[in-house]
């Protein structure tokens, strides 16, 4: 990345540096209460202290584990039901309005209910994340499978693909770009619901760290929690894209070509 520092990256870097320098200056100037708005240097020092006692890692792993656990359930079921509904018209007829109805309810509204049903333990958190992740994955999978290219389906059929082979070797790979887009949205949804779920109570977790720090009036540690969440979201997205690029070399290239074509046509 350092190899290609183009002007826009330099500008972005300059902007970020300016922002943090201004913040640092503001906190140190005495114009604001430095306890309420701790300087970036203070936040980094608190993060370092939390790291050294191993507390930050425990919070981070607890949160990541939950997010992944819920993501796996929600994404798995979302893909499964999305494919099934797009391929089975009768199942679709029965369930489509129902799924759309549930989709319309904001996932966060289920937090109190989930706590009531599953307690404040892991189950309620995993359930909430899975619930939130399910819908974006489902809708993208559904559309991707339903809108299979008729041309590719014909090409597949003329080469002897039918039944489950058509599904596995033509329809699903063709729907993959949609499914991937759904999973990427789901990933950010998972982190969002994770925090909301952890705020309801937990023994470890980044959301819990923020909540606890508020109770003991450690604003600097609250900022550490925010920082970690930012890095987590950014990091998982980066990792996800990297994995896609490695596993599906054609995917990125196709998309870049389409974007280039769109740019060149006014």
């Amino acid at each position, binding site marked *: 990345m350092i190899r290609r520092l183009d002007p826009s990256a330099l500008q972005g870097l300059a902007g970020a540096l300016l922002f943090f320098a201004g913040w640092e200056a503001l906190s140190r100037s005495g114009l604001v209460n430095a306890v309420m708005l701790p300087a970036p240097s203070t936040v980094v020092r608190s993060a370092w202290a939390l790291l050294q006692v191993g507390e930050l890692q425990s919070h981070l792993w607890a949160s990541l584990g939950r997010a992944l656990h819920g993501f796996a359930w929600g994404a798995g079921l979302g893909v499964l039901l999305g494919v099934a509904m797009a391929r089975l018209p009768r199942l679709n007829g029965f369930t489509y309005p129902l799924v759309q109805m549930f989709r319309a309810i904001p996932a966060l509204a289920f937090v109190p209910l989930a706590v009531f049903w599953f307690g404040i333990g892991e189950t309620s958190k995993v359930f909430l994340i899975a619930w939130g992740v399910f819908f974006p994955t489902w809708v993208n999978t559904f559309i991707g499978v339903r809108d299979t290219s008729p041309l590719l389906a*014909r*090409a597949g059929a*003329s080469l002897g*693909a039918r039944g489950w082979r058509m599904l596995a*070797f033509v329809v699903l790979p063709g729907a993959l770009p949609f499914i991937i887009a759904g999973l990427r949205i789901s990933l950010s949804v998972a982190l969002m619901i994770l925090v909301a779920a952890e705020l309801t109570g937990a023994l470890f977790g980044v959301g819990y760290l923020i909540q606890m720090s508020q109770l003991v009036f450690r604003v600097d540690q609250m900022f550490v929690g925010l920082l970690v969440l930012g890095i987590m979201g950014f990091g998982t997205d980066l990792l996800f894209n990297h994995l896609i690029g490695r596993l599906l070399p*054609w995917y990125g*290239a196709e998309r870049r070509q389409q974007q280039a074509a769109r740019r060149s046509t006014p």
Partner: protein
Amino acid sequence: MRAATAVAVSRSRTAAAPPRIVCEGVRHAYRSASGQETLALADVSLSFADGAFVCLLGPSGCGKTTLLNMIAGFLQPGAGTVAVDGRPVEGPSPDRGVVFQDYSLFPWLTVRGNVQFGLRMAGVPPRERRRVADDCLDRVGLAAAGGRYPFELSGGMKQRVAIARALAPGPRVLLMDEPFAALDALTRTSLQNDLLELHRRDAKTVVFVTHNIAEAIYLADRVVVMSPHPGRVIEDITVDIPRPRRRTAAAFNELYERLAAAIGVNALE
């Protein structure tokens, strides 16, 4: 009278060997959103001899692609029958390879993966699959491109791969729907020559849809001219200009004039 010539042509071929493809009284109607019915094909009867290279020529809307889709098994005729090797066509099958006008390679597979696709569906073991695929790629001049992805290929190369993919399962019939229409003139000529060479070597029955008169004369043993509203056959001509054909030859131009007159050149783009 023209219909009579068509029958005579197919009969003279029938005498030698049973025809590969027989269409009898084929009719097909599309219904538009407003409920209006358009006759894409009205009572078309044709038969194609084994090993023939036949071009279906005509302006858009004449039903040439509809007829090809019926032979491929993508469409069922509203009336009449389409049979290949004496058996009615009930659906697509790898013994009728199809090359489409639009690029139809699977973007998620490499060139070799695309060419192997039909063999994979047929359960051919990997080693044999790869051997056949590389052989087919070699025949279309792309032996070195097996590991590349479709997005890395030019339009001409994509259509070469599409031809190799259709050939790999060993079809007896090759159905081509304006496969070179989107290519530039030089690439098109090069692909036309390669297709003729492929046909000369293994004599598959080729049905080639085009709206390009010169392309039809250059390629075909027989040109079936179709006309729209309703879609029907208006001319059925055996092309006996010796190969290689030169587009500047007198016989070529004579036939060009005749076909252009039959279609009414204004109907073409």
